[in-house]
């Protein structure tokens, strides 16, 4: 092997390593609502279910507001600057990406999981006997 090839190989390995390191260290963890509240100001992913009838708007501050409850039963008010995503009311769950600031979770992005109805079976949809 020529010295140039060795140098290129080492550079490639170091480059890919740096890329992997950057992805791992700059990724955002999935946490519970309680953990998100304890990590005020840290960017996190919170997974929860939309609290019924909790969606409201504040047109003046251009915000969509809603409550999210996680598996542990903890609840947080989410503030999102943007239009309401499709199918939000009947989503299985919502992933809010952002950080807790004060009493609210300020979401930069929302991932609304499409409704399970469209992947359910015929039997699931039949009324209970």
């Amino acid at each position, binding site marked *: 092997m020529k010295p*140039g090839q060795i140098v*290129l190989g080492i550079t490639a390995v170091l480059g890919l390593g740096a890329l992997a390191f950057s*992805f791992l260290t700059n990724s955002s963890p999935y946490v519970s609502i309680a953990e998100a509240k304890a990590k005020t100001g840290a960017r996190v*992913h919170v997974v929860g279910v939309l609290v019924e009838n909790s969606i409201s708007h504040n047109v003046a501050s251009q915000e969509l507001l809603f409550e999210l409850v996680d598996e542990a039963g903890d609840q947080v008010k989410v503030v999102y600057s943007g239009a309401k995503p*499709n199918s939000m009311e009947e989503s299985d*769950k919502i992933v809010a990406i952002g950080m807790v600031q004060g009493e609210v979770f300020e979401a930069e992005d929302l991932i609304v999981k*499409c409704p399970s109805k*469209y992947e359910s079976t*015929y039997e699931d949809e039949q009324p209970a006997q």
Partner: protein
Amino acid sequence: MNPADIPQPPGWGLLIGTLGQAFIWWALGMFVVSALLGLIGDKSPQAKRWIQPALWTGLGGIGAAFASLATLFLTNQFQYEYVWGHAKTDYEFVYKISGIWSGQEGSILLWTLMSALFCALMMRRTGGLLRWQGLVSGLLLAGMTAILAFESPFTLIEGGKTMMPFEGSGMSPVLLNYWMVIHPPVIFAAFGALTGLFAFAASGVLSQDLDGWIKAVRPWALLTVALLGIGLCMGGLWAYETLGWGGFWAWDPVENSSFVPWCLAVALVHGIFIQQAKRGWRVANVALAALPFLLFMYGTFMTRSGLLDDSSVHSFAQMDSTALKILQGMLGVTLLGTVVMIVRAWLVNRDGSKTDDTAGAWGRKAFYTAGVWLMVGLSFGAAFGMSVPLIQALSGEKPKAVVETTYNQNMFWLYIPIMLAMAIAPHLSWKKISLKEVWIRIANPLATAIFLTGCLLIWSKWGPGGLAADPEAKLTLMTGWVVNRAGWTVFVTSFALFALTSNLWKIVEMLPRSKRGIGGELAHIGLAFTMIGLICSRGLEQTVFTTASLAEPGTAFGYTMTYKGPTEDFAQRNNEVLIETTKRGKTDVITPGLYYIFRPDQPLQSIKWPGIRRGPLFDLYLATGEIEKQLYEEIRLPKDGVANNTDRGFSIRYIGYTMEGNMGSEGAKFIAEVELIRDGEEPETLFPAVAITDGRLIPEPVQIDENLELVMNKLSVDDGSAFFQFDAVHPFIPIQVFYKPLVWLVWLGIGIMTLGGFIASRFRRNPSASEAQDGA
């Protein structure tokens, strides 16, 4: 309902479903036969002769199964679980067709069909490779068909032999879009081609002829790149036109599952050029042909197994457990096969000819090599980023996800050298040339790129025909440096401009000599245009939020926006809302989509898609919300509590309430007494109320001014506090308005890239003619 009233499924409907399932098993058998014939092909010429017929017959079986499913969809055979879940009687013809691949089972059927088609086509006229292609293609297709046998679209609902539901459940309303009709067939065709590339690489290794397969695979590799490119573009266009976040690409795991194979297929195309021109790269090309399929399988497993359930906007049901095990098995076998192939290729090549490196660092080979490594790096980055949740979970840590910004920041470091390689490589030769000669060749395109960068900078500063960039907008780089957003965007774009001008220059030089040899340069130009469009449309993007109603138009970027009502009515699937835009006396209408789905005992579901006015310099992109009245968040006031509305310059004081009728009974009415206080004016007393009507609390608002009313939603009987909100008198629609410069370059670029790919694919079928370009 009387059981006698439930319709019986027609006998022919049941027969077609049974036949469909039988065709799947038939195809599975034929693919196994093809593999076995390939295995014994060296011992029996007779066996070798029957490999292709066996595979084509298997393809026929899968095609017949697909046709059977299409028939069931077109004739509303809801006794089948899959048809019931993805079709409805009132769907237009195109949506009945797209329903076929809108779910898991149907998309696996389409993938198998396309894979079989490409494997069969790629086996034509491949001589000594045929036997091994038959073996590997047969095994892979048998695996896919086995998944299909367990994840069958021909499963009946319970009691489906004797009853047929009146109506299907239908697919997600979000999928009722024309892109759903055309995007999946194209992207699955590309995925099918990946199967063929893998079989080609395996046949090269198994035949121990690491050069023979390269010539045959070249046009197919180019076609695969073109198909994947179109498929990715269609997915981006679909997201842009329907999702309303104003972008095309979000590094979603599902997007990455297509992007990673595309990067590797591009690397393969360049690796093939190196092998053909300078020998060498034999082992690397085997890896580059096998990896796209392996990584696609990996991506499929990650997205379909539920592992990335919380990281993707896409919703795929988890696979049937047996089908998932077969997919896992296929992934494992493919991984093992790839490793064995690479090791075997290395052993075969140990005594083979070495690569010719006489051209040195400024030769075309060095730049192609760099380009290949950079594309591999890009694919590694996307695949690694997608795998972060899995890596974290396997290491016992809490799962993490990589956000779009991190992807953009990391991939940027690969983007710059890729653009530079794309700009410089076409001007280099396979033979050694001096650095001075290189400089002479690239000086003119570089000067042109610098000039165009200056033009873009001026345009972003003053924005003639569009908008000047926001001079205050900042961007934080990976290093933590905060830079001017517009300036940084222009700087980043300059690299793509260099790639663009350089390849255009090359085409102008080449045209007198070889008109058909411009495919590669055209593809580069297309990619450069796409990058310019992607970078400028996001980097110079501006957004404003406004609300529009008949009474109070909104304003954004100098446009007055008035809501003029629906085009049909809000229950119609094709309903759009008319937003009249006026600027400098010129009036236009933009029509975002909005309709509601009404279902008993369930919340009203709204389906929205943005309205776009496309232009040569910018797109005006309107992502609307739903029709609203609520302007401010609900407030709770105790007795004597005061709330200020600083926007409109008044405050209210809640004094208390009185009740008419009997507490909790129909007709009971709670009337609040509220003082409206404006600066310098006498307080005005208002009486908003809420009454129990039909068992529900119905507010009776009072008007504050011509556009605003005060609503009392409810009262707390315990402490007498009341819940108020300020609503608009006239319904309004919230609008997120995006100004997106140069978006059309994205689509133009993809078109040119695809054209270039097809020209190169067709042209490179004739190797002798290609030497004119290769030897340049």
